[in-house]
Every structure is written in structure tokens, then in C-alpha cells.
């Protein structure tokens, strides 16, 4: 035990002496959270749209004012003919053009319906869908107002869509759990794999091996400090997302922290597994980044829903531990569900952890 504690103490000294390690450990998570939270946003804010008003009456004026005053859109250009649409969209500053047909207001009052077209730039599909949805919502809203004031008799039945759990469909609700998942697996796996391969590269492993330390002691001694620091990290990220983005933890905080500990442990053991397979720090960094970051982003359901993946991909994604943690953390943080709803995912994470630790100890070379 004394040997083990001596080893842990040495690891802490390494961490606190190395500024780069500290930056990776505490700087990157903060930057990532802020970056993903602010920059990678799926919310519409001041999207530039152009108007082609062939009617130019009171109605069209009202609708376009309503659209532009919503805060989601900004009027960029006023077009004069259909021929301009292509020209304007090609400049790609304007994301969409809204067209009111001829005699819009008159038709709407006499016939009860009039046409608006929304032409969007399909080269940015996400943006295009968002704009269509938002504009449709605003026009629907206008319809309702119109029905309420002008023709009291005609009740328009409108579908009312409400998003549960994330009523305003805020991007942070989606990104914070995703970023926590991504950062934790990256940092934990990266840090541990680098510290072990560092001992190999500097030749200190040679001396450690020729000592009575057992592989278990070396591995646990490496994991322990990073485990504690990563846990502090998680708390820091949660605090940050609460203070900056106002993201609450709806479920039990204790459960969330417990699940996070499990996830950290799993990531650390994955890092050790990587280190037993790589000879140099460079190799370890490469595997951690390329082997973990891309699959985590692409296959964990962080950005692309797993349900929508073509057959085969889903099965591959099932082998990616992060997806289970994303499910867990979203359930607890956003839906506020209890352990009964995430026990399956928890079990899977435990299984991964046990497998990684087992493989690491087996693969750990007791010789050179």
C-alpha cells in the first residue's frame, strides 16, 4: 500500500509540474464547452433573407415585418424580379428568399388563401430546414392572428407543436452533454496513454519494471490521480454550463456524478489499453485523437442520430462506449429520469470498463 501511495504521489508531482498537462486537463474542457456552446449553434439568429414582393400591399408588409422583427431573421435585400433570386442566393450572404404572389392581400381576403414561397439555399441543408420551419411557424402565427381579428367565424385548426424537455429547442441542451462525453473520453484516454508511454520513452519504465511493483499497482497508480482530477473537471463543466448557458441538472446530481465517475474510469482504462499497445507518445496521441475523437463525434449520436444511420453503422456505433454515456447524461440532465431508466446503459459501461482493465493487465508487459 505504501508503495502504491508513493507511486500516486509521484504521478501528482508529474501533473502539477507540467504546465502543458494542466492546460490540457483544465483549459481544453473550458474552451471546448464555450466554443461548442457559442459557436456551434443550431439556433437561428439574424439569418439574412431577401424579399420579392410582387404584391406590395398592406398584408405582405405586415407579414414581412413580422418575420424580420422575430429576431431570427434580418432583411438583406429587396428583389425586383424572379431573375434576381438566383443571383442573390449565389452570393450566399442571403440564406433564403421569400416571395409573395401577385395580388396577395386581395386574394387572401376574397378567396381566403394566398401563396407565399420560400426559396432556400439547399447547399446548406440544416440551415435551409431551419429557415423553412421558422418562417412557416411565423406565417402560421400570422394566420391565427388574422383569423382571430378579421373573421371570427372561421376557426382555423392549427397543429401546435411543442418540444418537450427542450421547449425552445436550444442547442446547448444538446451540446453540453455531448461535449462532456467527448472531452472526458479524449482527455482521460489521452492523458493516461501519454503518461504510460512517456515512461517507456524516457526509459523510466525499464527501472519501474525491475522493481517489486506489480502491473496492477503501476496501472492503478497511473489512473488514480487522473481519476480525481477528471472528476473535478466534470464538476467544473457542469458548473460552467449552468452559469453560462443556464443548463440545469433536472435529475439527481448524485446519480449524474456517479455515472460520470463510471464513465471517467472507463475512459481511463481505455487509455491504459491504448498505452499497452503503443510504443511512443506520438503513437498514443494519434490513436487517442483519431481513433477516439472521430468515432465519438460521428458515431455516438452526439451530432447524427444513430437511428438514422444506414444498416451496419448502427452496429458499429453500438461498440462505441460514448453513446451509452450520452444517453445516460441526457436522461439525467435534461429529462430528469432516475436510475431505473438508465440501468441498461450503466451495465454496458461497467462491462466496457471491466473488459478494458482486464485486457490492459493482460497486455501489460512485465518485461521489455
Amino acid at each position, binding site marked *: 500500500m*505504501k508503495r502504491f501511495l*508513493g507511486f500516486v504521489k509521484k504521478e501528482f508531482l508529474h501533473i502539477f509540474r*507540467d504546465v502543458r498537462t494542466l492546460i490540457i486537463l483544465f483549459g481544453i474542457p473550458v474552451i471546448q464547452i464555450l466554443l461548442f456552446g457559442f459557436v456551434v449553434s443550431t439556433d437561428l439568429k439574424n439569418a439574412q433573407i431577401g424579399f420579392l414582393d410582387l404584391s406590395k400591399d398592406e398584408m405582405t408588409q405586415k407579414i414581412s415585418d413580422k418575420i424580420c422583427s422575430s429576431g431570427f431573421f434580418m432583411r438583406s435585400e429587396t428583389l425586383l424580379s424572379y431573375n434576381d433570386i438566383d443571383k442573390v442566393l449565389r452570393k450566399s450572404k442571403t440564406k433564403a428568399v421569400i416571395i409573395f404572389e401577385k395580388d396577395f392581400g386581395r386574394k387572401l381576403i376574397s378567396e381566403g388563401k394566398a401563396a407565399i414561397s420560400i426559396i432556400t439555399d439547399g447547399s446548406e441543408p440544416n440551415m435551409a430546414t431551419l429557415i423553412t420551419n421558422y418562417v412557416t411557424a411565423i406565417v402560421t402565427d400570422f394566420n391565427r392572428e388574422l383569423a382571430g381579428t378579421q373573421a371570427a367565424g372561421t376557426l382555423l385548426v392549427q397543429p401546435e407543436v411543442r418540444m418537450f424537455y427542450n421547449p425552445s429547442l436550444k442547442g446547448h441542451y444538446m451540446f453540453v452533454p455531448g461535449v462532456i462525453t467527448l472531452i472526458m473520453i479524449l482527455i482521460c484516454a489521452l492523458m493516461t496513454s501519454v503518461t504510460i508511454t512517456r515512461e517507456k520513452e524516457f*526509459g*523510466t519504465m525499464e527501472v519501474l*519494471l525491475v*522493481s*517489486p511493483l506489480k502491473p496492477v499497482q503501476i496501472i492503478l497508480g497511473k489512473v488514480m490521480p487522473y481519476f480525481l482530477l477528471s472528476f473535478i473537471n466534470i464538476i467544473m463543466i457542469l458548473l460552467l454550463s449552468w452559469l453560462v448557458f443556464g443548463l440545469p441538472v433536472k435529475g439527481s446530481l448524485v446519480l449524474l456524478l456517479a455515472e460520470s465517475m463510471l464513465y471517467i474510469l472507463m475512459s481511463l482504462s481505455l487509455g491504459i489499453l491504448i498505452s499497452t499497445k503503443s510504443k511512443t507518445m506520438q503513437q498514443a496521441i494519434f490513436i487517442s485523437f483519431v481513433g477516439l475523437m472521430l468515432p465519438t463525434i460521428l458515431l455516438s449520436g452526439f451530432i447524427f442520430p444513430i437511428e438514422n444511420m444506414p444498416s451496419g453503422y448502427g452496429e458499429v456505433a453500438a461498440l462505441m462506449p460514448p453513446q451509452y454515456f450520452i444517453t445516460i447524461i441526457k436522461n439525467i440532465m435534461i429529462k430528469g429520469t432516475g436510475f431505473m431508466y438508465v440501468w441498461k446503459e450503466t451495465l454496458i459501461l461497467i462491462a466496457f470498463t471491466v473488459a478494458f482493465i482486464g485486457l490492459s493487465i493482460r497486455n501489460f508487459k512485465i*518485461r521489455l
Partner: protein
Amino acid sequence: MQKIIEASGISKKFGDTQALKDISFEVSEGEIFGFIGPDGAGKTTLFRLIATLLIPDEGKLEVLGLDSVSGFRELRKNIGYMPGRFSLYQDLSVEENLNFYATVFGTTVKENYDLISDIYSHIEPFRKRLAGKLSGGMKQKLALSCALIHKPDLLILDEPTTGVDAVSRAEFWGMLRKLRQHNITIIVSTPYMDEAMKCDRVALIQEGSILSINQPEKIREGFSRKLFSVKAPEKYKLIIALRSYPGTITTYPFGDSVHVTFRGDEFNNSLYEYLNGMGISNVEINETRAGIEDRFLELMEKGTKA
């Protein structure tokens, strides 16, 4: 006397490279046993085998009465190993390094302080300094202190003096001699022939084979011919001239002179005339005692001819 290391018929291959072939030797308790040979001779591989870091392909290796393969766990408690490369934590201070190795081996610095005091006292004034910032000689003393801190029965030192200045080297050997009084057996490798004289016994090793094992004095005496030291102002020209002289067997530069052996172990005036003819004058020729290096080169020569 008890045998500390018994090796018989050890071979080790890395891919196609035969690092060691059929090596046998014994080291007795309390000896300072040196392995002398050029880079790439197989010294490091051999030491790693003894330190239980590698497994021999063939042969049997017993260290401290234990098999080096099956008894590695027990062995690792009782050997001190200092690898050829500086292998301490550069970002830890002198004191922290020493304390770390002490705890890892289940002891304390205090407990075995008398053993290392002689060596450690040199670096103790710098105990707060990071190990990476020490000079070469100090690094080596720290590494030795760390390898000794658990009072091992066998100390394995792989090229401890490579890259260290002459004064520190001499000091280091002085320390090793003092360790004998604690009954610690030491095996040490070095590419420097002059250090061989400081060992109790040495093994000359070349291309994975042991050429000879004996006391350094005896190895010198094993030189089979009379050796002459030839001096002249222009050494390079002298070597070329001596090599082309029909009576010469071997010519090797040695310090400021050239060590030469002649057919029939003698030379006559025709040599002076020959050298004069080549434009070399002021030649001084004396018979000299062969050193370890001379014997080593002689054995190597035989090895390649055989």
C-alpha cells in the same frame, strides 16, 4: 564462494540479428565483474537478461540462485539496475527521485542511508534541484544512489560512465570499490578499456560472444607476442608506412604512439631504413607492455580470421 550469476549457453536473437550467442560465465559473490566491448557487442542485451527484462532464447541463466525467467518476481526485489540511459524522472527533484525509489522498494532513505551516504553526500547540496538540471556526473551519482537505495545483493550497471567526464569517472570507480565492503556484487559494462583494470575480473565481449574471461592482469599477460611502441612526429604517415612494411603483423594507434608487432618478435635496422625511405625520421622504438586493449584487438583479429 557462492555463485551470484551462473550463465550457460545463453543465446538471444532480435529478428535476424543474433545479439548474443552461446554465452557462459559465472560471477562470484562480492566481485566487481566487468564486461568490456565496443558498442553493439551485446552488453546491454546481456544486462537486460540478467535484470529479468528479457528472456533468453536458449540456455540457462541463474541469478542469486533463482532462475531468471521463473523467479523474476523474487529477483526484482534483490537487484539494483541502472540502465545505460539516464532513467530517472527529470521533472522530479533529486530528493523526490530518491524517496520514490525507496518507497517503491519498500524501504526508506533513512534506513539505508549509510550505504549511499558516500555517494549521495556529493549531490545532497542540490537535493531540491530537478534531476533534469543536474550535470552528467551528478545524474550518474543520483542514478547509482537510486539503484542502491534498497540494499540490493546484485548491482547491474550498464555503461555507467559513458558520457561522463574523466574526474567523475575516476570518482565513480572509487565508489564502486568501496561498495565491496557491503558485500554487494557488481556487474558493470563499459566501452572504455582503461576501466577494465579496475574490475576484479573482466569478460571481453565482441559481436555477441565472449572472447576471454580473466583477471585484467592475466588478460594483459595473455598477449602472445612482443609489443613495440613506435613514435614519430608524423603519426598518420607513420601508421601508413608501418602497415606497408613487410615485417609488420599488426599496427594500431595507441595514444600518441603506435603499437606494432613484428614477425619473429623483433625488428632490425632495415625498418629504420624503410621508414627513412618513406620520409619519416626521428623514429623512436621501445618494447612495451600490452594493455587490455592490445589483447582485445589481438583476440578480435583471431576471431575474424577463424
